[in-house]
């Protein structure tokens, strides 16, 4: 899976936002923290939910359970909005 090309990501300070271009069906705005930013960075290349969890678990000193929960929830939400292909 990969971030849909009709969505743009912008990081400003601690905030990460995802906005659709004119070609996306979704017309809102998604705001999140740095975790969202990290997930979106990983979604720039074709990847899997498990790979994202593994990468984040290696990189951050947070329990794997918390990472799994955050990643699954974020990806599920992004999929609902059509922001993820595959």
């Amino acid at each position: 899976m990969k971030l849909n090309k009709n969505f743009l990501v912008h990081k400003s300070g601690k905030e990460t936002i995802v906005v659709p271009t004119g070609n996306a069906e979704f017309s809102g705005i998604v705001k999140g923290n740095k975790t969202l930013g990290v997930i979106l960075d990983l979604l720039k290349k074709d990847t899997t939910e498990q790979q994202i969890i593994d990468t984040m678990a290696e990189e951050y000193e947070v329990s794997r359970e918390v990472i799994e929960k955050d990643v699954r929830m974020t990806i599920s939400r992004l999929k609902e909005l059509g922001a993820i292909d595959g």
Partner: protein
Amino acid sequence: MDKIRYEDYIEKNGSLTYTNVGVSMLPLLRQGKDMFIVSKRGIERCKVGDVVLYRRPPDHYVLHRIIQVCPDGYVILGDNCVNKEYSIKDEDIIAVMTGYVRGGKEHSISERGYRLYSFVWLHTIPLRTGIKRTKIKVKRWIKKRMRNS
């Protein structure tokens, strides 16, 4: 999912980062690539050169540049447009552009590069719109000739 109007979002958050639709603000904002950052406008009037987000009733939102300030409103023109808009009042203007994101990098309108672009764009309006109008006329003429031949 609840929908929120631009003006309500900006009122609540102070600013908005979003994408443009269309080509009217080229070459500054490229659809599908760049983002604009607008902030809630203050009580003071806008000035020439400001890129503003305004509402065109009933529910159309536009991001274009002010090219003239009049006592009762503004004359507005998109950077890539030829037709000026004359009836934009202070109350129609929701927010003023304070920055933009190009190539993933955030830029402020106070940066030298932007100020130079804005200056050049404002001072070449008759020349640019004249060339654009001529191009449009030539294209139409060619199309007409091709249809008739």
